[in-house]
């Protein structure tokens, strides 16, 4: 295993300078994600108009993988429909849990997370933002946990 494969430039960059941080003013769909094992806390707020995600922001504390994954996700999902986001989630989940799988071109920068599959203990760090976003989109404002 090569650390540079996990901590790629893109990941380190998004960890240091996360995009789309903060909280959207109400009315917004909001969900809180919590990883009790790591202590990661994440709040995602988003606005959906005509089934399309107009805006999304995140705030919280987490490791580099969790922060970069959240940051990359916000860039990737903006402007997509809820169904497209679900497809993207499935593709990301496959990428994170299947080592050596070829990242589909549709994933774009999210492909930088492929190294996570070599570190099973870290998969939950990368999926926390996605689970939280899906929770927010479901309209049920609540806390979700990954462990």
């Amino acid at each position, binding site marked *: 295993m090569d650390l540079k494969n996990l901590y790629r430039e893109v990941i380190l960059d998004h960890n240091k300078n996360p995009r789309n941080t903060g909280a959207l003013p109400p009315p917004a769909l909001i969900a809180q994600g919590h990883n009790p094992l790591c202590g990661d*806390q994440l709040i995602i707020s988003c606005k959906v108009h005509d089934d399309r995600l107009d805006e999304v922001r995140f705030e919280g504390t987490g490791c580099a*993988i969790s922060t970069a994954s959240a940051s990359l996700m916000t860039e990737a999902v903006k402007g997509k429909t809820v169904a497209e986001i679900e497809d993207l989630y499935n593709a990301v989940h496959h990428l994170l849990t299947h080592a050596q799988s070829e990242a589909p071109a549709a994933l774009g920068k999210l492909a930088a997370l492929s190294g996570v599959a070599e570190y099973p203990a870290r998969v939950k760090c990368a999926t926390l933002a996605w689970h939280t976003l899906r929770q927010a989109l479901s309209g049920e404002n609540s806390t979700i946990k990954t462990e």
Partner: protein
Amino acid sequence: MNISELRHTMRARRADFPILDSTINGKPLVYLDNGASTQRPLAVVEAERHYALTTHANVHRGVHTLSQRATDAYEGARERVRRFINARSSDEVIFTKGTTESINLIAQTFGRLLTAGDEIVISHLEHHANIVPWQMLRESHGVILKVIPMTERGELDLNAAAALITERTKLLAVTMISNALGTIVPVHDLIRMARAKGVPVLLDAAQAIGHQPIDVQALDCDFLAFSAHKLYGPDGLGVLYGKRDRLNALPPWQGGGDMILSVSFEKTIYNELPYRLEAGTPHMSGAVGLAAAIDYVEGLGFERILPWEQHLLALATQRLSAIPKLRILGTAARKASVLSFVIDGIHPHDIGTILNEEGVAIRTGHHCAQPAIDYFKVPATARASFAFYNTEDEVEALAVAIEKTIALFE
């Protein structure tokens, strides 16, 4: 023994722990997660194997030879524990699953006799195992939980403790060594305060048991809990020590075989100590392993273990303190060989992953002591914890791996 003799002695001891020869990610294993669990020497593995191959049957049951042998081995282990902690009598030694179960046993027996408004005093440094059982008692019995506060250095505020321990206190339950920060708690002072008010004391010795000699009579504690796997012994076994009068005053805990003298559907007569508190078939091979672990530790001697671990702690503290951006949490005057730290801008989980890539095993997270970590307003820490078999080279390997981590994130 001077440091150079200790260095030689401890290095030779590594041969007793084959797992220390492992490679992880192509690098020699540097095992610095001893606070979570220590490794087992061959003597312990062999003792358990010998038990399984020559001795095993159920204890206290059969008239046949193996049952007698197993009983002798199991009761022999109890006597070995008694000598190790200097209990008055071996029936004051109760075998449990571990420290957590030992504390829960007290909470669910001693605690059952408490009523609303009774107070239990714990400290800010406690492991969740010495917090949650008392919170459960708060919910079920309305007892009041009071917490001895800690200071910026990770020490307990003894003046506050003196004010918290009163005639209303029914139990003082404190750790001897903080697993998260390494603080050695001045339990003698706390016990003196408790004695003055007639308050019984439960000591959580989970971290302390492998790092210092413990004499329950000299301590004059009422209960003491520890786990075998933090004393170079097997997992799944622990001990609850209690003064005989205290144990006899406890209502029965789990019901079942071994804890009874006779059972009819109308009435059950409970057994004597220690069996009264050990329902069901116990972990016999584990007890035999623990006895072997005690032999091993006493053979080496705390007079060697302690100064070497303190030497490693001092070396690591000095080396890590010199790393920019690194901050050590827990700077008590008296510490066991535990070093908790954070690095500006790098989450402990990333530190743990990168260190593992270098073969260095440390713990990251809240160490099951969230309040003690929350105090420092961090979500988690990285923790290196040293055992006698660790070396100065391993301290250096830790420091170099940390420097690599920082470089990667720059």
